[in-house]
């Protein structure tokens, strides 16, 4: 099996165990919501309040709303992981194709006299 296929399989396995990431519920340092800020500081910084939650995302917090606070949240999280992988890889493929200008590796071999894997020809 080609290494790339193997790595994609690993990636999908990782996506299936992603609910392990849900065990930690606290926010990261500096990523508190306004309620948590109120608790910490006793006030909400005024500028922050104005642009807080400017955009919540389409699936806010990686768990679809109807799945929140239920055992299904793990499934929602896996769903988000797979969706995210598909969208991220899709965008990267499009941008990559544009940037590569569909330049094939042969050109490069001609330029350098070396194969794709760096071996001497």
């Amino acid at each position: 099996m080609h290494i790339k296929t193997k790595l994609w399989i690993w990636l999908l396995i990782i996506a299936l165990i992603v609910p392990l990431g849900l065990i930690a519920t606290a926010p990261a340092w500096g990523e508190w919501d306004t309620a948590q800020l109120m608790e910490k500081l006793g006030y909400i910084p005024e500028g922050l309040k104005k642009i807080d939650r400017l955009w919540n995302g389409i699936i806010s917090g990686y768990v679809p709303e109807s799945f929140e606070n239920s055992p299904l949240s793990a499934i929602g999280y896996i769903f988000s992981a797979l969706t995210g992988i598909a969208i991220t890889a899709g965008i990267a493929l499009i941008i990559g194709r544009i940037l590569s200008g569909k330049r094939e590796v042969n050109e490069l071999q001609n330029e350098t006299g070396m194969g794709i894997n760096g071996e001497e020809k």
Partner: protein
Amino acid sequence: MHIPDGYLSPATFGFFYAVMIAIWAWASRVLKKVLKLRQVPILALGSAFSFVIMMFNIPVPGGSTGHATGGALLAIVLGPWAALISISIALFVQAVIFGDGGLTTFAANSFNIAFIMPFSGYYLYKLICIGKPSTARKIFAAGFAGYISLNLAAIFTGIELGLQPLIASKPDGQPLYAPYPLKIAVPAMALEHLILFGFIEAAVTSAVISYILKNERTLLYTEHKWKYKIP
């Protein structure tokens, strides 16, 4: 490390948009010259990996969480410029689709996670691999690059947050955006990454590099004799 909307003042996030637009433009210039069609699937794979690895939140005592990012790993596999683009894409999807990291702060987050991390990680790896490195040295170098680069990104994030009370406060001294000063923000960000998340990043980086070295060494950008010159 994904700064949400509201934590950076407009002057700060505007500054980072200006800086990152220049860096993204330069990256596309470089990649337009060197990126080959055959490398595109690896770019997509790296981008997706970076996206998903950041979903593994790990708790630290004291009520905070963090995660690995794959920044150094992608730079060793793809080269720093391609890593910059692929991590930026992952951060973009996280912000736009999942509301993780703000829209105003997208450029600042990209600066920390998609620029500082892959570039520092890449050059550290190269530095440790000077000469004819053994496989063991390469695996160590990968882990070390992961550890240090994640910490650098965390410290940059801490500095950006910690500068906010200086840049934007009400006349009575109440901060308008991120509320904690440098002397709190930098140690808080640094400490949790130094004691825990850095080691997770190191383990992930070493594990994947070791797997690739064993299976198909030439997948690594750093193993190519023909790799492009960094401008």
